[in-house]
């Protein structure tokens, strides 16, 4: 027996399996996706309960089992349900091939079989037992954080490495003077910058400048200097610094490193200020240079890769997922083409890791939950390895949010606990929390920010019943949005504008004007694949009053919201969508349907309340810190 209570999504899976086993006298075959042995044991326990004490026997196939069906059938004597797992993941192809040719025997003996596999090996199983797979009743997902690489110990290892190098620089500072001291200070700034302590880094840079002013524009430290200024959101200083670099570059006859640094920094500057056209223009210049100067392709590729990844982050934030994927692919292609020692360098590995982070965020926007978790955990792992501490913890934080959204609160807490522990350890090692990035300040006057601000003010005005003010803010938001570069207008802001328009129309008793902007927005979001955002718009439609939208339109919207929520496993939106569906079902007299929805709502509410105390799978521990 296990005392591991199952969270709601897993309980639903158990229910489906139990119903099939009880309902069918012909046996059953389920593919169960999940790697946690604790979850598996809890599922087996729950199944025993649901089947009135019918035995559920766990069988693990050894890699060298020559007769797997004999093993299965020996366990399946009588009325036993066999819960089958593999000793290794992914299972060896030869073992899967042997499992694949026994399905008729299993069918003839009416075996009820659960075949367990980790999410990462699902495709291997499908390929390996293609014929058994074809007989499955269905696939049930019991994935948990055990299905992903959640090892964040490397974050701490990387921090230790940074702190030891910082200590080396500090040791030099204890005796060095002049040029040597300036070099050590800039080294110190570099390591502090990587730890996220940008203010301390700037202090070190300023001191270095005072000691050896001639090195201020040394290309070896120019990158650190510009990045520190950007993180601190110091636009004027950054601009002035880049202009100084520009002057040096123009005096230089050769195409040297300063050009590279400058070009990359200009591009990053444009990105941070949300001047996308300018950023892409600079990227295009790099692309041209890449193809024009094959002898220097490593240089250009080294600039293009990170630039693409950074721009991809911007595109994800605008809801332009296709453009983001296009950039991430290009980044990987450029990095993959690097020669010499480049592939071993930390930053090249970091590019791939950050790309995974952005893919994870994009997958979340699509409500592709498992894909998002796989990308985010993968990126956290790799980012930890290369010492990108803030980004690694950012990935894990988003993963924790997703676990909470899909009702795996124990897993969410497990990951969050890991984040907190790592953060504390890192802060102990580095002597304090990182300075929050103020890079956002650089985009303060952009149309995007102005639209955002106007929307917030409009929503507040509407909540306070100031419809004239709200109308003014809406007009400001619309104008700012239109002032943004047409190619790079945010789908998210457009959706928010539409929702504010609709709310204002209702507030001003113009119900017929409430639906069209929402309907248009929902269609645009669907086209863009932004299902998570579309949920918000569909809820807005479903909650419109009858005079604003027909019952059919509201029912359709509620149903659409339910589909997105259930497809992505998002519990709160599922509950909200079901509440609307229950309400509509009652309106048309479908009382049984309404009651069925209300029963699910009660179950979700109970799960959400209990979720605060749901433990994580016992085997889902984060690796211990060194």
């Amino acid at each position, binding site marked *: 027996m296990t005392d591991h209570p199952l969270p709601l999504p897993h309980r639903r899976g158990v229910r489906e399996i139990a119903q099939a086993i009880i309902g*069918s006298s012909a*046996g059953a075959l389920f593919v169960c996706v999940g790697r946690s042995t604790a979850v598996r044991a809890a599922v087996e326990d729950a199944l025993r309960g649901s089947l009135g004490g019918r035995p559920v026997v766990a069988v693990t196939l050894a890699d060298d089992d020559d007769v797997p069906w004999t093993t299965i059938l020996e366990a399946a004597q009588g009325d036993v349900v066999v819960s089958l797992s593999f000793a290794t993941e992914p299972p060896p192809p030869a073992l899967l*091939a042997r499992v694949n040719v026994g399905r008729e025997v299993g069918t*003839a003996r009416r075996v009820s079989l659960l075949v367990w596999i980790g*999410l990462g090996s699902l495709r291997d199983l499908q*390929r390996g037992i293609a014929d058994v797979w*074809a*007989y499955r009743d269905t696939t049930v997902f019991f994935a948990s954080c055990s299905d992903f690489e959640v090892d964040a110990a490397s974050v701490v290892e990387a921090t230790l490495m940074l702190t030891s190098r910082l200590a080396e620089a500090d040791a030099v500072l204890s005796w060095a003077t002049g040029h040597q001291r300036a070099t050590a200070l800039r080294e110190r700034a570099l390591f502090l910058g990587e730890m996220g302590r940008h203010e301390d880094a700037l202090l070190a840079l300023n001191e270095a400048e005072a000691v050896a002013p001639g090195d201020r524009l040394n290309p070896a430290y120019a990158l650190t200097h510009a990045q520190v200024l950007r993180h601190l959101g110091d636009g004027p200083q950054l601009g002035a610094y880049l202009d100084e670099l520009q002057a040096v570059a123009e005096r230089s006859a050769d195409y040297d490193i300063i050009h590279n640094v400058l070009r990359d920094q200009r591009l990053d500057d444009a990105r941070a200020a949300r001047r996308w056209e300018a950023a892409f223009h600079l990227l295009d210049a790099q692309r041209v240079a890449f193809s024009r100067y094959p002898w220097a392709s490593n240089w250009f590729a080294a600039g293009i890769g990170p630039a693409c990844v950074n721009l991809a982050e911007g595109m994800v934030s605008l809801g332009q997922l296709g453009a983001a994927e296009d950039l991430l*692919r290009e980044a990987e292609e450029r990095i993959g083409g690097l020669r010499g020692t480049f592939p071993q360098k930390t930053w090249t590995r970091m590019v791939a890791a950050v790309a995974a982070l952005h893919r994870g965020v994009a997958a979340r926007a699509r409500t592709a939950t498992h894909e998002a978790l796989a990308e985010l955990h993968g990126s956290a792992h790799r980012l930890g390895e290369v010492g990108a501490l803030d980004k690694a913890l950012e990935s894990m934080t988003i993963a924790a949010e997703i676990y909470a959204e899909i009702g795996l609160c124990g897993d969410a807490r497990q990951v969050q606990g890991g984040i907190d522990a790592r953060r504390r350890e890192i802060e102990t090692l580095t002597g304090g929390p990182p300075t929050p990035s103020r890079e956002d300040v650089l985009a303060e006057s952009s149309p995007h920010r102005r639209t955002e601000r106007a929307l917030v003010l409009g929503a507040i005005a509407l909540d306070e019943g100031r419809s004239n003010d709200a109308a003014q803010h809406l007009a400001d938001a619309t104008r700012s949005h239109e002032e943004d570069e047409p190619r790079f207008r945010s789908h998210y802001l457009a959706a928010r504008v539409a929702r504010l328009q609709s709310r204002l129309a209702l507030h001003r008793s113009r119900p017929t004007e409430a639906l069209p902007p929402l309907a248009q927005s929902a269609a645009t979001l669907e086209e863009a694949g932004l299902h998570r955002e579309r949920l918000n718009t569909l809820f807005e439609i479903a909650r419109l009053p009858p005079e604003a939208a027909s019952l059919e339109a509201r029912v359709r919207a509620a149903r659409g919201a339910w589909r997105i929520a259930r497809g992505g496993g998002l519990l709160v939106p599922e509950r909200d969508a079901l509440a609307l569906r229950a309400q509509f079902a009652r309106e048309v007299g479908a009382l049984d349907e309404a009651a069925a929805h209300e029963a699910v709502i009660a179950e979700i509410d109970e799960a959400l309340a209990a979720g605060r105390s749901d433990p994580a799978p016992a085997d889902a521990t984060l690796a211990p810190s060194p």
Partner: protein
Amino acid sequence: MDWATTVSDVIYKYLRPLIRQHVGAWSETAGVAGPDFQQVYVEPPQERIGSQMKPRVPTVERLVDHLTMDRNDTLILLTGQKGSGKTFALRRMYDDPAIKARFHRVFIRATGEDLKTGLPAGDADLRLLLLLLCAEVSREFNKPELKAALKQHGARVQLEETLKQWVALLEPDGLPTPQNFSDYAAKINVVAAELSWKTRSDDQRRRSLRLDETFAPSQLIRVLSALVRALRDTVERIDPTRDLLLVVDDADKYASREEAESMFLQGTHTLREVPCKMVLTFPYWLHFDPRYNNLAADVTREVLSNVKVVTRDAPDVPLEPAMAFFREMFHRIASPQVLESDDVLKEAALLAAGVPREFLRVLAGAFGLANEFKEPVLTLETLRDAKIILAREPIATSSTLAMRARLKYVSVTRTIPTARFWELLDSLHVVEYVNDRPWYAVNPLLRDWVDEQVREDRKALSDRGVKSKDIDDQLKARWLEVAASDD
């Protein structure tokens, strides 16, 4: 006729057992729960070829015609996409009155009837297949009427000599020396069955057998031929109008490249020498391999098509002949009162892409949701709700960039360009539409998901200033490149 009248009965009494072919399709499953084969089998609609829309004789009828009208010993190789109904078609052919009247039928399951026989998974080859056939054919002599006839008439001397020579090559096994053909056949049955069992589970034994000239295909085909001729003679003595037919199902499950090459590419010329009519299933991917098309012309190849459910030009409009098929299939097992309307079946047929087993699976998922919602009937909207849940699994197995690139390529070009794509047909990520010229599409459950990504990719190139006429060409080249990488 027993049929389902409630949502839950449809799922558990019919749809789910049918997905696992739990219909007593062959003798060994007789007596198991689930609907009867005769109740659930529906003749597929007539296929039509070309613009004249001439009806094409259905696959089963073509098989029956080949077997009953061709005077020569014929080897027929049969394949079809997973879920297309190969086993049902074989069963239907096997039970056809013309076949029953004309042939003494021997059914052989390549995977074995129990856990002791059958070819080893992942490592089968022509030798082992021939050995299995020897075991199964020699076992047939145990049937009382054949045993009696053989006892009465004996076998031709040269056949007995062939067996005698081969048995002499075997190591002493403690059995008494055979005295006549029956004994030889019995001994071969014991030896072949034992070897089948040992080679199935013992890698070492399998390796040594491959080096042993006693079991060279040239030897084994002589032995098998002698057994088949003797069986054929015996059958003829009982009834001079009857011939012998071997039906080998599930050989298609030996689908690794090495297995398929040994048994079906290099092995075909040997299998052709078996002196009787034989029907053998083979792996689906092989019929895309150009080498397969170079097989001897006298080997008949049949591909069991999925039901033609749409045309290329109107992929969202189900064709009436297909609907008649799926409608009848459903109404054989369930009352019309469990459906909101016929539109539900149309949508299910479209989502199943004409693959019968997928039709059952889609309906099982949808009825499951209706059951959860306590709906008395399955509505079209609930079926569409279920699509979201059914799509989770194929999406979860398509998450790599390479898989996505393959799916996008198929979605846009409707072709499968390289061997790398064949496995997508086996896993049903891609489906084959028929019948005039085959074309391909992503599984309809994945279509929205893939289309969305194609749209995004097109927009990204358009935003980069690529001319619209060049966008798809550039994307196709890029997808092919990514598709070639590992998953």
